[in-house]
């Protein structure tokens, strides 16, 4: 049934592209996709999150450029229309937090938003001020998730975040790393602290986390957010030189981006992948990867074998 629905959606997409009338039909498409978007439970609470979120690294750092800000707001609008919820940012990402705040205000504060931000400052004492500044930039009453960015001063910041959670000013606490760095320390923190989330880099070629971090996350009931799913676009640029595999249609994927995302979110330990984009068509394409069926291990192994040969 899921496959049949997917084929229907793809036919619809082709038709829209041919007529150039996508904007006219967007609400209908969005509502049908929203209904079918894959959701995965946050292990610590069981709350369900769509398996694809929206990152903001580089893409939303557009400063005060009014044209680019509006474009980001459109991306966010398409993301919510497609059933997305989790948007992730950091004080490290330049103007991204302010641009997200601009987009949220323009969209009248979508109630489905799951706000994920980070604390990134060497001084633990200055963490609360930075968090408050971030909250004002977003324009939200509180964050759903706050993470210690790249483990910077993690002990002090985690104390702050757990205290905020206990006081009801935060729903979830996490830590982040990227590109395989400090996995030993990440593991130790995962074992010792009552984390809700860990954010790591994972994609079809960067699979170090499969060995220890992802199994540990399952054992400990920690949700996993996946950053850099496309290696900042480098992976897609490489793959898009090759035709799609014959089995792409079987798994409901119409692009390499969807194949990569489907691979990631099909891992049982992964809660949500957060690709970043500046384009409305790309955010819709990404969200479409969070529809249909999840893949089994045999299929994921087949995907790895194919991509590693390219």
């Amino acid at each position: 049934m899921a496959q049949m629905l997917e084929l229907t959606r793809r036919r619809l997409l082709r038709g829209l592209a041919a007529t150039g009338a996508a904007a006219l039909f967007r609400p209908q498409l969005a509502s049908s996709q929203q209904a079918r978007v894959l959701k995965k439970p946050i292990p610590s609470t069981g709350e369900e999150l769509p398996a694809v979120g929206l990152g903001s690294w580089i893409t939303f750092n557009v400063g005060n450029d009014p044209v680019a800000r509006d474009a980001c707001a459109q991306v966010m609008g398409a993301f919510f229309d497609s059933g997305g919820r989790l948007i992730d940012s950091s004080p490290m990402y330049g103007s991204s937090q302010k641009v997200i705040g601009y987009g949220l205000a323009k969209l009248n504060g979508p109630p489905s938003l799951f706000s994920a931000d980070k604390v990134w400052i060497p001084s633990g004492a200055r963490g609360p001020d930075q968090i408050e500044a971030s909250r004002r930039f977003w324009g939200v009453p509180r964050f759903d998730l706050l993470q210690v960015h790249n483990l910077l001063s993690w002990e002090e910041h985690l104390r702050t975040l757990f205290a905020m959670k206990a006081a009801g000013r935060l729903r979830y606490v996490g830590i982040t790393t990227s590109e395989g760095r400090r996995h030993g320390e990440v593991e130790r923190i995962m074992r010792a602290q009552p984390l809700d989330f860990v954010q790591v880099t994972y994609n079809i070629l960067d699979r170090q986390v499969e060995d220890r971090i992802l199994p540990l996350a399952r054992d400990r009931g920690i949700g996993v957010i996946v950053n850099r799913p496309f290696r900042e676009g480098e992976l897609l640029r490489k793959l898009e030189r090759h035709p799609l595999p014959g089995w792409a249609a079987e798994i409901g994927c119409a692009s390499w981006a969807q194949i990569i995302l489907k691979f990631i979110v099909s891992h049982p330990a992964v809660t949500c992948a957060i690709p970043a984009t500046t384009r409305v068509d790309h955010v819709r394409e990404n969200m479409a990867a969070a529809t249909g069926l999840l893949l089994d291990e045999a299929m994921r192994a087949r995907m790895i074998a194919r991509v590693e040969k390219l």
Partner: protein
Amino acid sequence: MSEWWTYSLSDFLLFSPRTYYRLFELHNLAVWPWHVLAIVLGLAVLVLWLRGGARQGRTVAIILAACWLFVAWAYLLARYDTINWAASYFVAAFAVEALLLVWTGLIRNRLSLRPARDAAGLAGLCIFVFTLFAWPLVGRLLGRPWLQAEIFGIAPDPTVVATLGVLMAADRTHWELLLIPLLWCAISGATLWAMQSPDALLAPAAALLAFVLACWKTLSRLGQASPA
């Protein structure tokens, strides 16, 4: 920063090339018609350079200092700071360079330019002329819109490289004035390199030439000063 060896230049890039070059477009639109004054000031430096005169050094120093301050305020603080949290440090560095130019050139009257009589003077003059007239064309030749042109006195790279041209031609090596321009060229070159911009090596190449010539002038001076 632990595991520093695992980081690449692109890990420090906070923005996309599109955003970076759009900043120049927005900046140019915001400060127009100051471009006309900037070009006139650049031409004034050129005329003073070639004609010499008692007030040459003082006037050139004050013009360059004004350009550094304007770029610090109008571009680095008002524009670049919105996409790069490190920009506030660059603002401070540009302000320090402006103060140093005023101190060395205006107050102490230690900045004196030689007409292109030797290799250093000729190289400095060529770089200044290139920066004034050809630098704005570079972006266009690489396919960027005219509105994103980088102009002496308005954008940082041509302002810094033009200053290096002046310092190359100075009759003595001013290491205190060279330090910040050299560092800026390294930072700007690294940024453009991370963005895979074809013109990434322009500013670093000028900086390398300025550094080599400064070393050569310093060694020559030491050689002349030492006893036979």
